[in-house]
Every structure is written in C-alpha cells, then in structure tokens.
C-alpha cells in the first residue's frame, strides 16, 4: 500500500483500477523546407482541421459541462486564429524556411513562456492552453488520429497533466476519477472535473507516475486529496463506507434540491442554516438552505487579537449578505462570555460564567463595542436581506435599551451620509426561561424570536451542558422546555412576529412534527443537515385539512 497526497478538486471518492493516460511524445523535427508557400498552406489546412476538432469538443462540452465552461474551447479556437500567433508561425516558415511543425512548436513555446512568466497564477496556467492547441495542430500536421485509447472498463485515469480538451474528450462514463502529477486548481481541467462531477486529485508530484502501474487498485479521495495505491483490506472497507455515505448524501441532494419544505398536508416551514464564519457560505448554498438562520458573529472577535474594527466587520457582513443575494441572513450580535472567551475583552474571572457577564450583557455594559458592530451591520444591510438578533435576553428593559441604541446608530449613520436598509428585522433569542415566560411582553417589541435550545435547556434544567456528570439529568425533550417553546410561539404569533429555532433541537428530527404542530416558522440547522430535515418534513402529515 502506498499513499500520495495532492490537491482534491472535486469532493467524491472513487475506487477502481488505474489506467495510465499516455500521450505519444510529440517529437518535432526541425527541417528546412524549399517551398514556403506550400508549407504555409500545409499549416493552414492543419489549423482548419484542429479548429473543426475543437468545435466538436466544444459541442460535447456544451452538453457535459454547460456553456460557461465550454467557452474555453471557443477561446481555444480563437487562440488558433489569433493574428500574433499566426504571424509568428508564418514568419518562421517563410523567413527561416522551417517546417510547419517546428514553427508551431516554437511559437507555442514562446507564448507559453510569456504566460508562464506572468505574476498571476491563473495566467500562468494558460501556458498549458497554448501548448494544448499547438500540439493539436502538430498532430493534425502529422495526420495523427485522436490520441486517446480507452478500455471498456471504468478506470481511474492517471496522467502527468491533462489538457482541458483531453479531459472533455475522455468518455465520461468510463472515467472513475482524474489523478494528475501536475496541474493547478486554477486549470480548466480542474474546473471541468468539478463540473463533470468526477472526483479529481491534482499535483501529486513527479514520483507518483513513475511508481504506479496500470491495472493496480487505487482509492481516490477528492475530499482530502489522498490517493492510495493497492489499499489494504481494512482501508478499502473504510473507503467503501465513506463512498456509500457520500453517494447517499449526493442522491438526497439531487432528489431534494430545489424542493419545498412542505409537509404532506401542505404546511410550510423555512429551513435555514447556522454558520460560524463566512467560509461556510459555500456549504449553505450547496445544501440549498433557504437562508441563514444564525450567523454567529463571535468568530470575528475570537479570531482577533483586538476588537475588530467597524470596517473589518462591515466587509465580512457585506460578503455574507451579497453571497446570499435576496435570501434572509440572521446575524447574531456578539455572544462572547461563558465558554467563549477573548483575552482582550479583559473580562473578570467569574465563579459562574454561564450566569455571568456574557453576550448582550457585555454589549449593554460596553455600548461602544456594541455600537461598532451595529454600525457595521447597518452599513452592510443595503447589500442583502439582513435580520439582526440579540442573544441572552431576560427582560423588556434590555430590549428597549437595545432598540434605543439601534435608533441612535441609525441617526449617526444618517448624519454621516451612510445608507442603510429600512427593512432590517430585529429579533431576540429565547434562551432563558425568563424570556420565554414574558414572551408576551417581548414579542410586540421585535420582529422575530429565535429559540436557542442549548442555553434554554441548560438554564431551564439547571444542567451545565459541558458537565458530563449532569448529562443524565439533562433531558433535552423535557416537557418544561417544550412548553416554554410553545408559549413563545403562541406569543410571537399573537403579536405578528415569527419564531424560529436555531439550537441543536432544530435538527432533532424526532421533534420536527412537534415543532410543526406548534407553528414554528423556521428551523435553522447546520448546512449538512438541511436536506435531511427537508426529507423529514416532506414525509410528515399533520393531518390538517385545508379549508
């Protein structure tokens, strides 16, 4: 067994036999020619043939990877027609009396060198494109057939590098994975592999190709970039399991993507995603969440050595809002304290941090920190559909103070000439029993509630959620918790507010039906759970008959 690690460019797992993709080394001879005009004519014919081959590849790519990605072959055709490229080739033929093959190869080298010397990794990768089109012309000059040979068994295709045209020319149904010694994740091959949904690992290094043999068994893990040759039985089993899970997940994705979160009797609910950093947005979109129900802004504070500036925060919020387009993004203001500490806050050591100065309590004690965050949020609000949520609320006066601060932030921004949206929903977390019990008083002040079930459980049942000894007393389905959620839901709806759940209970599919009965409007779960939850919802029948 041997393991190599490269860069995975499409996350999926392949297990199968290795086939070595070998291209005949194109040996270009340098020959003097007598008749320049005839040689130029030869070049033109070969170029025409190359263009028509590219056209075929373009059409195949259109079907397999879509127009945007197929365009690269249109660009290839245009490169072949490029004046500078053609002039250079003709010049070598007519002025140096060289054969067309040599002229094309030399010109290709020159242009490739130009791209390779650019200080931009994307453009450097274009050197491969120039070589690819030129090799095609040379092959046409030599009247070579398409140079691919393929078996009729599905294989893991290993190569030193694959040109985009080679990637697309391979019969997709016969390829289990692409594995290359070189190549960059910017290469069009990587982009195409992603679009063809074929696991691919690139950049395994030179040694790799020398050591593998055609026909040996291999595992390709496109998630981690691992390629394992001749795997041991145990590892093989492990990967077979991983592959099966991945396939089930993707199948679910395919089946449920774009579908509504609606029960059999027609009750609808929003399923949103919880995220802890802007990096997770990809997962949110991939899993088709309807919005972001909880964006924990703490990471901005925890990853910093000092208070994050307004500008720093603004850029992150803007990015998240823009990426989600018109979908709702609920951003929770900082929830530092208890188990999440940042040294520069210089908070006193507390006997009981869970009951200490945390979250909104810090914000109301240090309004300047709070205001910086609110200013950044309001300024970013024009880039999408923002809702702001405040954590750890226990009283009406807290909410009134918060709303007062929001108003003063708006006034400040207005005088400074900053724009902000007029449609920002403001909401609070229901995570203390106090908030749930007085939810009738809180609901008229806000647009929404979001139940944080982890803290609500901890505070209701007096169980430290990090203490393993209290675990058996910490029944997350405790009737007290469910009643508090139900009270909150009734009070929210009676006052025209909506209510969501963003804690761990939201993902507990044994409670989904209960929550639907309570009239919960939104469940927010980790991105990977969105579709599982959708599946559950779509199989629930609340037995309500529509009138």
């Amino acid at each position: 067994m041997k393991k190599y690690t490269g860069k995975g460019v499409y996350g999926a797992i392949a297990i199968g036999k290795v086939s070595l993709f070998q291209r005949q080394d194109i040996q270009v001879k340098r020959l003097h020619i007598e008749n320049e005009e005839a040689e130029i004519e030869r070049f033109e014919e070969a170029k025409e043939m190359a263009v028509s081959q590219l056209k075929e590849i373009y059409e195949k790519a259109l079907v397999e990877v879509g127009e945007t990605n197929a365009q690269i072959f249109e660009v290839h055709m245009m490169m072949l027609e490029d004046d500078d490229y053609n002039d250079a080739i003709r010049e070598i033929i007519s002025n140096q009396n060289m054969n067309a093959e040599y002229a094309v190869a030399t010109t290709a080298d020159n242009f490739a060198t130009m791209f390779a010397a650019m200080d931009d990794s994307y453009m450097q990768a274009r050197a491969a494109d120039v070589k690819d089109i030129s090799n095609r012309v040379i092959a046409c000059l030599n009247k070579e057939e398409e140079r691919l040979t393929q078996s009729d068994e599905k294989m893991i295709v290993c190569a030193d590098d694959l040109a985009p045209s080679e990637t697309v020319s391979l019969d997709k149904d016969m390829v289990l994975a692409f594995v290359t010694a070189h190549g960059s994740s910017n290469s069009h091959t990587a982009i195409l592999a992603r679009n063809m949904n074929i696991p691919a690992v690139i950049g395994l290094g030179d040694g790799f190709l020398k050591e593998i043999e055609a026909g040996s068994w291999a595992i390709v893990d496109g998630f981690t970039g691992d390629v394992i040759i001749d795997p041991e039985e145990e590892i093989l089993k492990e990967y077979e399991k991983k592959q099966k899970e991945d396939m089930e997940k993707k199948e679910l994705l395919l089946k449920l993507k774009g579908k509504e979160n609606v029960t059999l009797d027609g009750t609808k609910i929003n399923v949103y995603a919880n995220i802890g950093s802007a990096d997770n947005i990809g997962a949110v979109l991939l899993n088709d969440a309807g919005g972001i129900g909880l964006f924990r802004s703490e990471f901005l504070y925890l990853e910093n050595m000092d208070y994050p500036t307004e500008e720093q925060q603004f850029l992150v919020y803007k990015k998240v809002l823009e990426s989600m387009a018109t979908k709702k993004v609920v951003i929770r203001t900082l929830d530092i304290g208890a188990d999440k500490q940042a040294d520069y806050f210089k908070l006193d050591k507390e006997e009981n941090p869970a009951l200490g100065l945390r979250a909104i309590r810090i914000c109301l004690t240090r309004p300047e920190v709070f205001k910086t965050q609110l200013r950044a949020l309001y300024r970013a609000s024009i880039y999408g559909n923002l809702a702001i949520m405040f954590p750890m609320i226990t009283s009406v006066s807290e909410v009134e103070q918060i709303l007062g601060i929001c108003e003063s932030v708006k006034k400040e921004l207005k005088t400074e000439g900053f724009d902000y949206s007029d449609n920002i929903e403001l909401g609070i977390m229901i995570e203390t029993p106090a908030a749930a019990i007085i939810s009738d008083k809180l609901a008229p002040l806000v647009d929404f509630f979001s139940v944080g079930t982890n803290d609500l459980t901890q505070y209701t049942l007096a169980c430290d959620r990090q203490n393993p000894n209290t675990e058996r007393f910490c029944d997350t389905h405790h009737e007290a918790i469910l009643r508090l959620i139900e009270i909150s839901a009734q009070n929210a709806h009676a006052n025209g507010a909506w209510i969501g759940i963003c804690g761990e209970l939201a993902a507990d599919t044994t409670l989904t039906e209960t929550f639907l009965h309570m009239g919960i409007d939104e469940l927010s779960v980790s991105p990977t759970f969105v579709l599982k939850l959708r599946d559950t919802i779509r199989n629930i029948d609340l037995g309500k008959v529509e009138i």
Partner: protein
Amino acid sequence: MKTFDYTIKDELGIHARPAGLLVKAAKAYASEVNLTKGEKTVNCTKLMALMGLGVKCGDVVTISVNGDDEIVAAEGMKTFFEANL
C-alpha cells in the same frame, strides 16, 4: 477618437473567457478598438496579446475607439465592459 477609462471588477481580471468575448465584441465594429494598461496598448482583436497584458481586478484600463463607427462602438464597448468585466 473616443476613449473611456474602466476599472476591472471581475475577480480574475481579463482572463481567458472574457478575453475571448472581448475579442468577439471588438471584431463586431469597423473601428479599431485598443486597450491600454499602463504603458502597454494592445488591439482588442488580439486574444493572446490581450491575455498577455495580465489585467487584474481593480486595474484601470483605457479603451480607445477609432474609426467610422466610433460613437456606436464606444457605447457598445462600455456596455460590454460593464456586463462582463
């Protein structure tokens, strides 16, 4: 001659695909369309030269249009840049 400045907004700059589209767009006019970045100027119908400029996101380029249909062409190019780059 008509000229205008444009700040590139595409994350990858004038990369292969948009360069190809730009060539197509420029070829549609009788006027000569040139693009200048810093001290270098290239004809927009030349794909390789265009890519070789290495125009990146945030770069300011000057587009100059010269010829019989320059008014229409300049408008057309402006629309093209705004839509694609």
